[in-house]
């Protein structure tokens, strides 16, 4: 049970990060990646299985949001920000 949970959590984490990379907007992309990383890091020591279940459901819901919004962001993409240019940070 614990082993499959761990695998499940890692799978979700990787999926979330992968979907977040698809955002074309610099703001959304960097915020999503940072937030996901920090949220998983913050909750890594939780032992209560109910709480874990709740957090996993929240993560799954957020994954769906990111998938949908990533697609929309792509449809309405615009030029890159000046700081995304190579040589400008």
């Amino acid at each position: 049970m614990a082993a499959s949970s761990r695998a499940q959590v890692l799978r979700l984490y990787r999926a979330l990060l992968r979907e977040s990379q698809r955002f074309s907007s610099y703001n959304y992309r960097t915020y999503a990646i940072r937030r996901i990383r920090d949220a998983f890091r913050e909750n890594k020591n939780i032992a209560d299985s109910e709480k874990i279940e709740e957090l996993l459901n929240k993560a799954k819901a957020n994954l769906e949001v990111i998938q949908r919004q990533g697609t929309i962001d792509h449809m309405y993409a615009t030029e890159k920000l000046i700081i995304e240019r190579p040589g400008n940070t």
Partner: protein
Amino acid sequence: MLLWRRLAALRGERTPRRLRAGGPGPGPGPGRKSDGGGAPRPLYMDVQATTPLDPRVLDSMLPYLTAYYGNPHSRTHAYGWESEAAMEKARQQVADLIGADSREIIFTSGATESNNMAIKGVARFYKSRKKHIITTQTEHKCVLDSCRSLETEGFHITYLPVKKSGLIDLKELEAAFQPDTSLVSVMTVNNEIGVKQPIHDIGEICRAHKVFFHTDAAQAIGKIPMDVNNMKIDLMSISGHKIYGPKGVGALYVRRRPRVRLEPLQSGGGQERGLRSGTVPTPLAVGLGAACEVAQQEMEYDHKRISQLAERLVTKIMSEVPDVVMNGDQEHRYPVLAHQLLWSLPMFCGQLEQMKTWLTHLLDLALVVSLQKKKWIIQCRSAYST
């Protein structure tokens, strides 16, 4: 526009296509492919003016812009019921953010309308007995303009001055009360320099004098914890597009116990407790609700992040740029990053070269630069991004 061109010429660049004479270039929108060929977009630093939509907020709004398009006031069919349910859920989300009851939230078209409703509404309702209002000199234009229009109706207004730090003097506030004062209006966080007024104390003073306390919390909501009961607030204006929500929606909190009475500005079908008639825009209300919920969940995390970034920005500028003065109180402010930092830099003609170098870096950051005689006052409003 001319200034941009001159400064761009200094850098040796051609002015971007959109700024050249000869009509507007192709605008933004779908179909405009970002092939990297167009001019790069500037970094957005004017977060005090408006914020981008959070993807979670847009996600919650889309169903109500596409499938669930019913009028929430249609009582007789499922389209109406589902819209109404969404609107009420949004109302509860807004109420939860400020510690209020959902029946105390009225949806409006923005903080400007909320401010107008609060100030003119309360003043006119109690005008038979109370004709005095207290506000500050640094309020938002809509508050000052509402007060000015009330003056033409026969009210008298006290505009309290602010100290050098931007905060009001509580003793002056106490002294300004008169037996016929009906309302005190002080904004929570200033939109120009980011100072946080002592709302707790002002609330106590107003409660003691039995005068209604209105606060324009547009910049404070979702960024610092607000509780209308702890802070003894009777009316509060909320703006959607300052908290990563949609533009065109806001809310007004109107206390029910003890009841605050308002004369409605907008007449019509009696929606929103009769205080603001008109169909509530369900997608916008849902967006505002979602923005409030996200803000509540992320408040602590965002505050930590913003404080780090603000610290870095202020320290670097104050230490490396000579002759800089930061406007506003150092301690009682919202970590300056989400608000405008106003610096005054004495600039003499001889230092133009230096200024040119600094400016070329800053120009890429979409700063607004205004020349005031020999002083450059750089308005730098910092970003939510990164």
